[in-house]
């Protein structure tokens, strides 16, 4: 049984077929990369699964339950979380509070109005643990807006991870940082995700990163799946190679 399945999922934006009858399956425990050129429909697919967009047709099944009609908050409760391509943080809050808030939200504690957030020892302990896992333990007191770009990317993932999802979507966790930092971020993210036994789906452009960290790679092109397999099979796939060449050739 797959953790997540989409059945003939479709989404059009005018003439653009962003998601063209996609049948997507994610297996429990895998680290899956979603690749493809810009406009291939990767983010649209993630947006549909996380209820950021509504599909034109098709169904989404999570743990064999139809979640197509569920709202964002219901899907999060079901165990699906995500991070964003452009860093999406609470810049006015401290790094610590960014993560703590995710934990409060997950535990249904955000209605608590008569107690100080800083007095919740359980949440404080868990927040410290999550920050330590992402190498941000020393940065807790800074406001999220003061972090460097690489740290912001990590915090963005940490906030989603703190929801303790069963399925975590990461939309380009290394975009906008230097190549050196990319490896560092992916090392951290993949080790946290694997040690936490979280199933992860990562949208990524850097093929070196993709080949190194993924259990499975799915390649999208014009709203449909072009290839699907383990890194070695994808590396050997000629259709994929031609698309990748298309990406890397100077326009």
């Amino acid at each position, binding site marked *: 049984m797959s953790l997540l399945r989409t059945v003939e999922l479709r989404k059009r934006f005018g003439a653009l077929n962003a998601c063209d009858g996609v049948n997507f399956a994610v297996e429990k425990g895998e680290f899956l990369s979603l690749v493809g050129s810009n406009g291939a429909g990767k983010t649209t697919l993630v947006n549909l699964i*996380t209820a*950021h967009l509504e599909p034109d047709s098709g169904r989404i099944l999570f743990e064999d339950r139809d979640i197509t009609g569920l709202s*964002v*908050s219901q899907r*999060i*409760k079901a165990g699906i*979380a*995500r991070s*964003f391509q452009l860093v*999406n*943080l*609470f*810049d*006015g*809050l401290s790094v610590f*509070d*960014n993560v*703590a*808030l*995710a934990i*409060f*939200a*997950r535990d249904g*504690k*955000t*209605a*608590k*109005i*008569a*107690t*100080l*957030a*800083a*007095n*919740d020892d359980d949440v404080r302990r868990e927040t410290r643990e999550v920050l330590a896992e992402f190498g941000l333990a020393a940065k807790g*007191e800074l406001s999220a807006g003061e972090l460097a770009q690489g740290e912001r990317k990590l915090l963005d993932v940490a*906030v*989603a991870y703190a*929801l303790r999802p069963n399925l975590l979507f990461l939309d380009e966790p290394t975009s906008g940082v230097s190549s050196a930092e990319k490896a560092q971020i992916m090392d951290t993210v993949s080790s946290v995700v694997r040690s936490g036994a979280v199933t992860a789906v990562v949208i990524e452009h850097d093929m070196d990163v993709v080949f190194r960290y993924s259990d499975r790679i799915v390649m999208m092109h014009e709203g449909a799946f072009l290839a699907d397999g383990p890194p070695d099979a994808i590396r050997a796939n000629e259709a994929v190679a031609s698309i990748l060449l298309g990406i890397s050739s100077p326009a």
Partner: protein
Amino acid sequence: MKAAAIALPRSQTGLWPYAAAALGVAVLAAVPEFVGLYQTQLLTYGLIMAIAALGFNLLLGYTGLLSFGHSAYFGLGAYTVAFLLQWLGIHSMEFYILLGLPVATIVSALFGYICVRHTRIFFGILTLALSQVLYSLALKFFWVTGGTDGLRVPRPTLLAGMIDFAGSGGFPRFIRSYYYYVLGVFVLSAAIMWVIVHSPFGKALQAIRDNEIRARFLGLRIRRFRWAAFLLSGTFTALAGILWVPLNGLTTPDVLYWPFSGEIVFMTLLGGFRNFSGPIVGGIVFTFLKTYAVASTEYWQLLLGSVLVVLILLLPTGIVGALSQLAKRVWATREGRT
């Protein structure tokens, strides 16, 4: 509010906000010993405006919603007191508060339910429109509200009727007692507001202010939070109206009119909407500023307008924001030297 709720936090920020608050309260408590009756009266008005601005800033500073209709809730508090006196013959300040607050909460909940369906300018316009509805009602239903003449509210009794101000010398006695009464309510209100903005609920509001989309992807139901913030905000501002009317002795439609909403915005910006204590400082400073501007020139609105322009251009973070930046800079240079 449970007593345990105001327990000191075991946070790393330390105890200095509590020390500063204790010092501030001590100074405020001592002031009437050193100044005249008139200054004490002005400071009472200032503390009342501070409560109104604290309530307003829960929406602006902490939730990111600019209301241009907070006169509605202030006026609601004031008129509720006047009606309680007129219809039920109530003279006790405690009853004014205990009966006035639920009325304010219900109306705030109703108005908020309409307003939080939108944000930004649409939200602002809706709050403005609803406040103007109350203004029109107060103006047109003169057989109930007294129209432009308003309704008179004489000095109430305090502490369940234990203190009254009948007879000669009532006014100075009232001002001195009422100052401490308002100070007490102010301290309690500020403490409750402090807990609210530092609670998980308050953190969620700030998260929604900073990034609505991400907040939604934590599973937060945005509109509910905004609604709750609106309701609390309106109730706090109404409390200020309740406290204000016996001091003023009269409520007129002016306190429901939109320029007064503008004044609430002004005092909050003056003190600084990014700091907890900004609206408190703003409420007090604005009260004195306006009083002396009105007394010194008939062009006082021009004077206040100029202050506003200078404020926006030079001190966008308000008095408290500017002072805390200054303090940080001094601190940093001193740290660097040692």
